[in-house]
């Protein structure tokens, strides 16, 4: 088998902040290798190190050896050559797509590599069709759903037929149907080598030839597919990767008064789509999930229920205050120090975030830091702390588990239980675990309608969907 990637990194990271030590990785053609680990274990740094991004674009240091198809990306000349035979799909399409239309985005790759404009557009059109984006060639990227944007990044990364593909957390914010597309796509890659960086390892365990687990910037284990048994899965889970199946929990909760009730709702944007909701309610003490495909209108419904968007028709009655928490935690911060955020919440609500419980004890140690400089997990937690400080009767959370490893997820579960013990909670989510383990009722949002559905049925439907 041809060797597509061979790297042996002695040390990599940033001045005075080494992230990786003693890492080796090899990928041959037709091989699928998955790198797993908790948030902060060094998964993305590994990708950026072996491809030369850290020394050439981020001012960092990589000591060691790396060859991609025989080319040394740690040397600037080699770094400039690797786009010819590699493809990259990053976590968030909005942090990857640079051009205004799908056609331009896919052709951009080819034009960079020297294709003529005419040939580039011809090939780009073929790839857009292959990825189900025919008819969308000249639409503005902003008009595409999350799943379509993900397919666009796949098309733009493969259009030049690379021999090695890097996928960095391709499941982030993707619905189970989109996940099935990605799995099918990986299955159909033939002789190409693939490196998948992922903490939701369970979605790809059956597709990969090898699993490499990282912990604190070092290799904690390497297993070939044939060696993966229960003890290995247990070990991988201990290292922060999600390898388990969901556990369906029967929820018998003593829900209280209705805190939000809506009837005959029609929501959406002028000139855009509309979503009809016959009947919707949330009681204090229960967690209600909004579930459905990307672009179906979950966030729009959530914002309408929060009072941010006015419905076209219908009535929403509430008891007490509502608090909407966006998907990206950075939107929640209004001041440039954690201390100021804590102070302002205390001034507005009388609640001290640092005393909300053991999950928030670290906050008092970072009061002088900017909230934007915290780790992703810390930012997510601080955002929850701010929301909890407001002591609302109803919390509306948009995809709260995005980017969370298994440890953070467990803590989030405990937090959801705490919040819902005194308030109603509505969660827009694709995460089957959340629906199976922490919600009481489910509304499906699809095809312009939202309706209450049987929770167990929805969990099974979603589980079947991602498996394709």
């Amino acid at each position, binding site marked *: 088998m041809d060797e597509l990637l061979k790297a042996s990194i002695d040390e990599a990271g940033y001045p005075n902040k080494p992230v990786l030590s003693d890492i080796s990785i090899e990928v041959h053609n037709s091989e699928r290798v998955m790198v797993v680990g908790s948030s902060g274990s060094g998964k993305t740094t590994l990708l950026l190190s072996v491809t030369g991004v850290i020394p050439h*674009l981020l001012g960092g240091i990589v000591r060691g050896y790396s060859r991609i198809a025989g080319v040394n990306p740690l040397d600037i000349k080699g770094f400039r050559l690797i786009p010819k035979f590699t493809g990259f799909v990053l976590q968030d399409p909005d*942090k990857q*797509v640079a051009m*205004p239309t799908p056609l*331009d985005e896919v052709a951009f790759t080819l034009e960079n590599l*020297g294709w003529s404009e005419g040939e580039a557009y011809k090939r780009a059109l073929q790839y857009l069709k292959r990825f189900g984006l025919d008819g969308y060639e000249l639409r503005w*990227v902003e008009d595409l759903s999350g799943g379509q944007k993900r397919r666009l990044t796949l098309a*733009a990364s493969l259009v030049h037929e690379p021999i090695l593909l890097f996928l960095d957390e391709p499941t982030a914010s993707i619905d189970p149907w989109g996940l099935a597309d990605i799995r099918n796509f990986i299955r159909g890659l033939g002789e190409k080598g693939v490196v998948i960086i992922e903490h939701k390892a369970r979605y790809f365990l059956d597709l990969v030839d090898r699993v490499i687990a990282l912990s604190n910037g070092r290799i904690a284990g390497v297993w070939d597919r044939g060696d993966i048994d229960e003890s290995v899965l247990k070990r991988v889970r201990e290292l922060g990767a999600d390898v388990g199946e969901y556990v369906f929990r029967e929820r018998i909760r003593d829900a209280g008064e209705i805190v939000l009730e809506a009837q005959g709702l029609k929501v959406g944007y002028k000139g855009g789509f509309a979503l009809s909701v016959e009947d919707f309610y949330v009681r204090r003490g229960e967690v209600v999930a909004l579930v459905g495909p990307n672009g179906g209108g979950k966030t729009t419904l959530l914002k309408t229920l929060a009072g941010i968007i006015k419905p076209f028709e219908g009535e929403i009655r509430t008891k007490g205050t509502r608090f909407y928490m966006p998907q990206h935690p950075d939107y929640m911060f209004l001041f440039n120090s954690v201390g100021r955020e804590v102070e302002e919440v205390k001034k507005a609500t009388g609640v001290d975030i640092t005393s909300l419980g053991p999950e928030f004890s670290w906050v008092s140690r970072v009061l002088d830091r900017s909230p934007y400089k915290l780790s992703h997990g810390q930012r997510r937690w601080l955002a929850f702390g701010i929301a909890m400080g407001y002591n609302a009767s109803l919390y509306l959370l948009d995809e709260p588990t995005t980017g969370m490893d298994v440890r953070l997820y467990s803590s989030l579960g405990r937090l959801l239980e705490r919040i819902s013990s005194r308030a109603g909670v509505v969660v827009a989510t694709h995460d089957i675990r959340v629906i199976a383990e922490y919600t009481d009722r489910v509304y499906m949002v699809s095809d312009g309608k939202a309706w209450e559905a049987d929770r167990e049925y929805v969990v099974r439907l979603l589980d079947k969907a991602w498996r394709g």
Partner: protein
Amino acid sequence: MLSGSSIRPGEARPVSVSAMFLYAIWITILGVATGDPEKLAVTTILTGIPGLILGYKRYGILVPLIGLALIGSFINMVVLYNVGNPVFNLGPLVVREEAWRRTLGLSFRIITLAGAGLLFASTINPRDAVKTLESELGMPRGFAFALAFALRLLPLIYRDLLEVLAVRRMRGYRRVPISPGDYKSIIMPILSISIERGLWVGIAAELRGLSIRPKRRFKPRFKRMDALLVVLAVIQTLAVIGFLGL
């Protein structure tokens, strides 16, 4: 309000990208070169207002922000320079010559600069910008790409802005920003997210071969309507350097 465009990709444009870019840059220079309200009135009428009107279609959120900037400049000038003959009364407040003149000068400059930028942003799409600025005007590809991506970033910033405003409302803060602190609390998260986004898009572009993109040099392809831009630019230049006796 940001989802559409005045000109869809692939559609023929009445003016060339190079001409529009050079025009916008030149008017920006004129706007910076003078603070005289009489001279800037011409750039405001010929470029600023048309730019705002065209820009409103695609970047609607920016126009009210410009309105807020104008109100802010008036308040500042009244506080700092309210001397000279009375011009008009605003309730109990007498607005005097110097404050009014400076308000007009700064307002016309803001409208001119914003209008020139919006004129370019709303008539050019990022792909055309990256291609033309690089191949016709010989700009470094990194600079042309950064400028093109800035155009793509605007709709994302608008989306960010809506989220930040929603959170401000949830947290009990003013929806319409008034104080510098309000503006800071809106700009900080948007800036943080945009910087992170820009960094990753840059990395992704490099990994897709931006640095080996072949240089294609073409002579600028000007269109007939570009002549109109030249005439407008000459009129505004003459006005600013004083030949029109204004």
